[in-house]
């Protein structure tokens, strides 16, 4: 049954999927992290979720990935619950973790081949072809035999994206893909995200602090602050936004006479 679902997906032409989030709230004990978030992600778009540290962006991404259950509200991928393993098989939902989350005991090749091997999706030759293609797209041909501990931060992120690509996903989630990278590598990863969307027609949800990434490649941007959704719109609309919390987040002014951290302490 499970294998049939995957074969049905991989056999047909890849269709991007949409995500519906309705009234989503998440609390850890007494701490409320997400409050009544409702948004709709259209099939095939790059949807960037931005916000300050601790605003709940990554928690929202984990909810979309089905890794955590909401306290209230729902997340649906084409009407299906992402926490259900069958939904993951049906749409091949892939998540690129902030630190890569590569399996340290496996080589780069083994990391990439794990998904099709474990699910017995195709022959070893076909798996090899799939992995090779992903390695070429991400320019990782020379890293095949290396272990994750031998890779730089940028390479780890590229391997994580390649691993997601081998899954032939219809929904690709990125958690801070450009964090801890130098500007050139951050631009490279940004280009890769845009290329994957155009080449593979995959719906991409990107959680990021990176303003350049959001304004350059996003079809739409959401701003989350203190667990609440403050803005959803196109990058052009975001530039016109008048909400002071949003404008201050996008264009922070460094004020040495009245430092921000002292105001934070006062509040």
């Amino acid at each position: 049954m499970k294998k049939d679902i995957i074969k049905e997906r991989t056999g047909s032409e890849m269709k991007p999927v949409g995500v519906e989030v309705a009234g989503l709230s998440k609390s850890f004990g007494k701490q409320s992290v997400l409050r009544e978030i409702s948004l709709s992600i259209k099939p095939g778009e790059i949807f960037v979720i931005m916000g300050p540290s601790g605003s709940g962006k990554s928690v929202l991404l984990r909810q979309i990935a089905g890794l955590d259950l909401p306290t209230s509200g729902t997340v649906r991928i084409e009407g299906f619950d992402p926490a259900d393993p069958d939904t993951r098989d049906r749409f091949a939902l892939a998540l690129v973790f902030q630190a890569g989350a590569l399996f340290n005991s496996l080589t780069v090749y083994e990391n990439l081949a794990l998904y099709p091997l474990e699910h017995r999706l195709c022959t070893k030759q076909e798996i090899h072809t799939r992995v090779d293609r992903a390695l070429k797209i991400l320019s990782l041909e020379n890293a095949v035999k290396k272990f994750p501990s031998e890779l730089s931060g940028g390479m780890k992120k590229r391997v994580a994206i390649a691993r997601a690509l081998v899954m032939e996903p219809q929904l690709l989630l990125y958690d801070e893909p450009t964090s801890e990278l130098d500007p050139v590598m951050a631009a490279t990863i940004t280009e890769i995200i845009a290329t994957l969307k155009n080449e593979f027609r995959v719906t991409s949800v990107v959680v990021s602090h990176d303003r350049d990434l959001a304004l350059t490649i996003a079809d739409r941007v959401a701003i989350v602050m203190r667990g609440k959704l403050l803005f959803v719109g196109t990058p052009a609309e975001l530039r016109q936004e008048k909400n002071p919390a949003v404008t201050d987040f996008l264009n922070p002014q460094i004020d040495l006479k009245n430092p921000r951290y002292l105001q934070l302490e006062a509040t």
Partner: protein
Amino acid sequence: MKKFNAILDGLGSAILLAFRAFASLPTAPRILKRVVEQAFFGGYASLPIVSILSFFIGAVLALQAGITLQNFGMKQIIGTLVAESLVRELGPVMVAILVAGRVASATAAELASMTVYQEVDALVTMNIPPERFLVLPRLLAVLFYMPVLAIVAIVIGWIGGAVVCHYVQFIGVEPAQYFAGVKQFLTHRKMWDGLIKAEIFGFCVILIACNTGLRTRGGPREIGYAVTRAVVFSLVTILVLDYFITKAQA
């Protein structure tokens, strides 16, 4: 009360983990390579330390028995005493304690760090159940290598006892006489009792380690705590279970 609840919570999640892992048993041929890897790490690599420890435990047992029994002129039953102690008690318990220290600690550390660094989440998003990928190979491997390690420990322990009986002057029991005592005691039933004990101890120790590792939350400090918890719970479990199994077998 909180601690009691935490213990019940851990017990419940360990039982659930075992059920989930064995639910993937039909896929066992797919994980054969990982079972072999785990058997190598847990079993084969433990052989030298098991051999050294069991040799000296057998030797000490024979020495103590020799000191006591020479006063009663009953040195000829040293073999029986050593065999009885090793087969039913010391062999399985010592091997289980060694597996708790050597394998369970490593397992808890590995799974805890995989959980903390989101590798387990990555498996979940790939729809590869961690119970099948990480837990089942370890549980199948321990079921395979525990009886082997227990047999090795018992036999080498006997040899340790025989060496002491032969070379320590005041004991002076010949190997033939010593092994006659061993043979006189040994029955299939007693051997099975010891091996069943070893199987149960090994299974529980690895299950506790996997459960503790996968339930770890937080940062690197929690990885260390997870290892300590796994080893302490394993040791307590071995001794508590030992009492109840011995009582049931009596």
